[in-house]
């Protein structure tokens, strides 16, 4: 990965895109745009600006299980973007590169204390069914549940993979803390893709965006082959224990604190996670802890994915916002990247850089 600390010379006639943010949203959006438009627009130049790169992004803390929230999204488009992401990832599952991407199939359990309606994504995942009584015997605190096959997309490995793909394409990365859209616009950017996640409020206040603080413990428990996610509708999403096996380690979690900006691990949260998960899965009691992390889900009532024109001096700068993916960033990322690419295509049309959008969109 090339990390440069100074912007390059301006070149006449180029379409310069700056993606702010190098988590899963920033990198996948950069890749999606580059894949679709570089072939038809030789002057396309894409750069990534970020003050945090893997392994220090929010994406790196995520367990990586593809699973939307169990309630219907407030914005129906999100359901489509989730589905597009699942299908896109599934199409890679038989590639020899799957493990390199951090991608694997995983099956498991969603557990409830009472019967609930099926989720809207039941036909997106594979083999969705209800749990049988014998399976529920395993989980004495729960009386109802689902079994399905989904995907793991490990944040750290996927970001490394995205970085490799972008580097191959000549996309450059810059370590810098962006203080304003204006500074990026005056630096020569024609289009800015805002993928700043939970810190988007720094660039433009957004009262709808809040940190959904999460803490996770990673353990060595290679006998765990299934995810187990419990639900407590009274407490809310991610506040109930969950166990998600990754490629090398198993993630234990169950913390979601809205408005908490504390980036350090908290001992009470540690105990909540540990006790909850060991109660759920007694075999964990002897598992060795390999790490503990805190991250902020960029929580928002819905994803902000839209264009905005900003005027600095005499030029117009297009900003495409793509942030606020809560606890389902990995789950929805590719659908959002496709949507941003579509909006970007419209920008190109408007600027007569493109006669019509590429047919494969």
């Amino acid at each position, binding site marked *: 990965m090339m990390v440069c600390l100074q912007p390059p010379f301006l070149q006449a006639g180029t379409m310069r895109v700056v993606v702010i943010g190098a988590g899963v949203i920033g990198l996948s959006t950069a890749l999606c745009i580059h894949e679709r438009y570089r072939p038809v627009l030789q002057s396309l130049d894409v750069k990534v600006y970020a003050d945090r790169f893997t392994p220090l992004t929010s994406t790196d803390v995520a367990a990586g299980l593809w699973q939307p929230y169990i309630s219907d999204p407030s914005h129906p488009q999100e359901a489509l973007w989730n589905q597009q992401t699942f299908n896109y990832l599934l199409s890679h599952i038989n590639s020899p590169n799957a493990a390199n991407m951090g991608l694997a199939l995983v099956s498991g359990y969603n557990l409830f204390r009472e019967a609930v309606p099926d989720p809207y994504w039941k036909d997106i995942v594979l083999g969705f069914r209800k749990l049988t009584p014998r*399976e529920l015997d395993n989980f004495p605190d729960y009386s109802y549940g689902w079994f399905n096959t989904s995907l793991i997309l490990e944040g750290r490995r996927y970001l490394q993979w995205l970085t490799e793909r972008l580097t191959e394409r000549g996309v450059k990365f810059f370590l810098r803390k962006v203080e304003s859209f204006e500074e990026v616009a005056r630096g020569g950017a024609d289009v800015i893709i805002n993928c700043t996640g939970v810190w988007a409020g720094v660039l433009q206040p957004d009262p709808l965006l809040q940190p959904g603080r999460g803490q996770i413990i990673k353990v060595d428990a290679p006998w765990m082959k299934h995810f187990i996610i419990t639900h407590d509708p009274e407490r809310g999403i991610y506040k109930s224990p969950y166990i998600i096996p990754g490629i090398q380690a198993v993630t234990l979690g169950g913390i979601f604190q809205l408005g908490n900006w504390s980036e350090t691990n908290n001992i009470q949260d540690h105990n909540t996670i540990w006790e909850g998960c060991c109660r759920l899965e007694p075999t964990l009691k002897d598992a060795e802890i390999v790490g503990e992390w805190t991250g902020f889900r960029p929580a928002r009532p819905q994803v902000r994915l839209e264009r905005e024109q900003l005027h600095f001096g005499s030029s117009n700068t297009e900003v495409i916002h793509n942030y606020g993916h809560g606890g389902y960033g990995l789950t929805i990322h590719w659908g959002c990247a496709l949507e941003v690419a579509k909006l970007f295509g419209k920008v190109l049309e408007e600027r007569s850089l493109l006669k019509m959008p590429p047919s494969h969109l």
Partner: protein
Amino acid sequence: MPWLLLIGQGRATVPRADLQAGSAQPMDRVRIAVVGAGVMGLSTTVCISKLVPRCSITVISDKFTPETTSDVAAGMLIPPTYPEQLDGHEGVSLKHSHCHHFSFCSALLFSTIIDTPLHKQKQWFKETFDHLFAIANSTEAEDAGVLLVSGWQIFRSIPAEEVPFWADVVLGFRKMTKDELKKFPQHVFGQAFTTLKCEGPVYLPWLEKRVKGSRGLILTRRIEDLWELHPSFDIVVNCSGLGSRQLAGDAKIFPVRGQVLKVQAPWLKHFIRDGSGLTYIYPGISNVTLGGTRQKGDWNLSPDAEISKDILSRCCVLEPSLRGACDIREKVGLRPSRSGVRLEKELLVRDGRRLPVVHHYGHGSGGITTHWGTALEAARLVSECAQALRTPAPKSKL
């Protein structure tokens, strides 16, 4: 012989029940020898210790974990579908066979369990499943090497039996959906379920601990003849697998050679088994087992490099990500195959001496799958022998 020395050094002589009329005294401590320390020997020992009061058990074997056949087996609880396809032969329906001698044909073309009724196979499987399921959900799971795994059994053509006899023993059994089958373009039908994996190299040491915990003895020795155990032991339990060819003079037991690869591919969380049973991918605690072969009558324990290449290639067809697998180790095991598990009592008689034997061997490719059920039954047979020895009757019937 070690145990004779022990006896000579002041071990109390246990009065033996005299089987002649009139002079009998009931036997106090029954001395049991279990021959074989694979999954059968060790689990039978544990079952006996729980069932038979006032007995001492000694496990005697030349091989222990990790060098037994049970250590090579992946330990997936999926009962074999009989008849089992052997290498180099297409599955031929007996209807179309031109052979007139059924057992001759079956020995050539299939590994067929014809002697064990289906309800028994199911009972043993269920007992094993229930026993291991309880361990999997307890804090012992990691120490015992038992885990739950979900996955798929896939077929290139619709099988005669879409729902096998064990469907309600495993968890969540159902047919695969069309979307699930897309992962396997060469297959047209599949079954999805959750079952257990029981790993020899971890399970056997765990059983050995249990044996020692109930004050069982474990001795290393190669037994050439069961009579070596007389008169030091009152009952012999023969769990010697293929060794029974010699020890029990059983010509009906033969090896079916299986070569497997154990690789590192920790991203794999599901088992995949081709319905023929010849190709499979079984993710375990610390490695993934890739298989396999079924070579009848082949005693060769050395891995064959060509076969390893072939196994990897067949498995990569089912799971292309395996091309990234590393740390590949080859292993070979000889399945103790027979037309049925031999689970019965036999009274050996020679020169007026009597030695009750309980045979417990011949599980073929269904060893770990049925071990607890057959061990319970073997323990019951041992209990019967012990009772008979303790009964001061003029003419004990064994």
